[in-house]
């Protein structure tokens, strides 16, 4: 099993820890979906979660912004701290947490509204813009960050659902970025996209790393290798191995990791 204490010490030397999870257990009814996960996620870093289907990587990702709260039968134990604050503390409002920890989903899910309204929705409900000009600026900035501005600047009033899949996913990223989050969680953001759109989104992830901490769940090991600095390998609800991406892919310490990345399990 991966030894977190030494890893976190070395990590502390380089970067601040954003998320720190200790002894996290997740149950869906009687099903023990996540077992004893301990992990520290760094700021301004892309962390990739890889592993076979049903291994719990998406479940764990959804624990980080409490999206699992919406599932009635889901129960979470252990500590998850964001900047040292327990996000499952009673005093924490999940709505405020989610404004800080944005999320991009597997399937592009723009609202059936205009492109502008899609991006402006978050700033509006969080009161981030004082005026129409402020809001315009946030929208433009977010769309620029999502590398979408040049494509849509002339048709901001067009419906967001009328764009191509890749554009829709970048719109969702722009929408997530617009609320000025500190962490961006991405649940297989490229699984519904073609290779060109995937490349655009990956480029974008690399760009966003300068400002945010990113966590990306992916089924593509090449993608994990391309975009992430740290990689966590999940298997059957366990966090098997966590470390530098290069090390995980070239010299894994655990047998299961090696089997997975070489294609023998999964």
């Amino acid at each position: 099993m991966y030894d977190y204490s030494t890893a976190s010490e070395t990590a502390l030397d380089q970067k601040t820890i954003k998320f720190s999870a200790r002894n996290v257990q997740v149950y869906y009814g009687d099903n023990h979906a996540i077992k004893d996960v301990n992990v520290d996620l760094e700021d301004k870093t892309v962390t990739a979660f890889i592993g076979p289907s049903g291994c719990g990587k998406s479940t764990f990702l959804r624990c980080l912004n409490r999206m699992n709260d919406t599932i009635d039968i889901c129960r979470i134990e252990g500590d998850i701290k964001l900047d040292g604050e327990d996000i499952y503390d009673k005093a924490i409002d999940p709505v405020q947490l989610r404004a800080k920890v944005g999320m991009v989903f597997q399937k592009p899910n723009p609202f059936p509204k205009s492109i502008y309204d899609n991006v402006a929705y978050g700033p509006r409900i969080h009161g981030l813009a004082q005026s129409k000009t402020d809001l315009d600026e946030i929208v433009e900035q977010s769309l620029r960050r999502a590398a979408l501005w040049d494509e849509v600047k002339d048709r901001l009033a067009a419906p967001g659902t009328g764009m191509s899949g890749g554009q829709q996913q970048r719109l969702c990223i722009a929408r997530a970025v617009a609320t000025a989050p500190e962490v961006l969680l991405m649940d297989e953001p490229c699984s519904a996209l073609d290779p060109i759109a995937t490349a655009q989104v990956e480029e974008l992830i690399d760009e966003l790393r300068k400002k945010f901490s990113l966590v990306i769940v992916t089924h593509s090991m090449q993608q994990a290798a391309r975009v992430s600095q740290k990689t966590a390998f999940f298997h059957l609800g366990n966090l098997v191995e966590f470390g530098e991406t290069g090390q995980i892919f070239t010299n894994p310490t655990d047998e299961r990791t090696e089997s997975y990345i070489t294609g023998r399990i999964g």
Partner: protein
Amino acid sequence: MSDATHTSLMAQSAHTRRRNQAEKRFRAYGLAAIALGLTFLVVLLSTIFYNGVGAFQQSFVNVPVYLDPAKLDKKGNRDIADIKKVSTFAYAPLVQKGLFALIEAHGIETTLKKPKDMKKLMSASSTAQVRDYVISNPGQIGETVTFRLLASSRVDGYIKGRVKRADVARDKNINVAQLDLSDAFIEAGVISKEFNLGFITGADASESRPEQAGIGVSMLGSFFMMLVVLGLSLPIGVAASIYLEEFAAKNRLTDVIEVNISNLAAVPSIVFGILGLAVFIQFMHLPQSAPLVGGLVLTLMTLPTIIISTRASLKAVPPSIRDAALGIGASKMQTVFHHVLPLAMPGILTGTIIGLAQALGETAPLLLIGMVGYIATNPPDGLASGFLDPNSAMPAQIYEWAKRADPAYYERAWGGIIILLVFLLTMNLIAILLRRRFERRW
């Protein structure tokens, strides 16, 4: 592969042939079912139309009436209070004389020798119509004014073919000589069949004057009931569904509630009627026969329909939209009201309109709260009187007419059904249009 096992695709195997025949048979059954359904629909609609279209036309008599000052204003001072004291009995001879004079004017030969014999040709309401005119125009007294008066229901029935000469022998309301005179008057253009606006705008009339009866006032009764139903069941139903679907924990209690709502939708409407009688009228002492009470009872009946359809359309909103909103930090309520509800709106509106249409055609509960019976009120003169004054409703009025002995009322019942169907079709059309209009893709 050897030739022995090779089978040509050109020849169907016995198994394939049986399968294809079964499919053909199934298609034939389906077509037959649809054809049968369509036949019933055509028969139903054509029967309704054939029987009911007569109610939209009515025979009128154009009579010049000399408004005799000696009868109508004995004191000669045109005092409105005195004119009002003169009852319709004084008007009857004037109207009859007016019609009698036309016999000579058109050179018609008849065995009827007295103005009094004209009485059965005109509706009993005709004298009231002349009196109303005089009261509102007292200056016309002494003049001869031509009125368009309702013909009696027998004359009207004769013109429409409902009353046959053979039947008249046993009818004390009309005789053959009067029918002959009617024929002559039609020839002369005195009696004519025209569009009957009074049927659409008027109030119910007594047993003996079906020609005067209209569905207008009960239409208003239905309208006020629908206002109550819409105003109560839409907000209550939508609020209940949103809470159950989006906020309530899924546990045994909500399961019980859900099952019971489905059960309520299946409760016979007459049960709601007796509940309304016990609770709203006997316990809460709300006025009997009032559209308010009718609306409350129909609200109880419509609520389950609206709740079920609203929950179905909320369920149909893809969870990805909820995730998207929650994921950028919208609260549960913001998620529901900004994103889920607008997407569910077409379904909710459709369900509501279908619920309303159901309530509009409902008769049984109205029987128990006294909205059926001879309720010949004037149109309500305001909101309060619209909600609280005794009134009927369209289906109850139709039921009432169908019960009455005079065949002229039978025709009116069918006519009422046509109007009710027009309303229902319009509402369904609105439901379809709303669904088209607000449907958005995601």
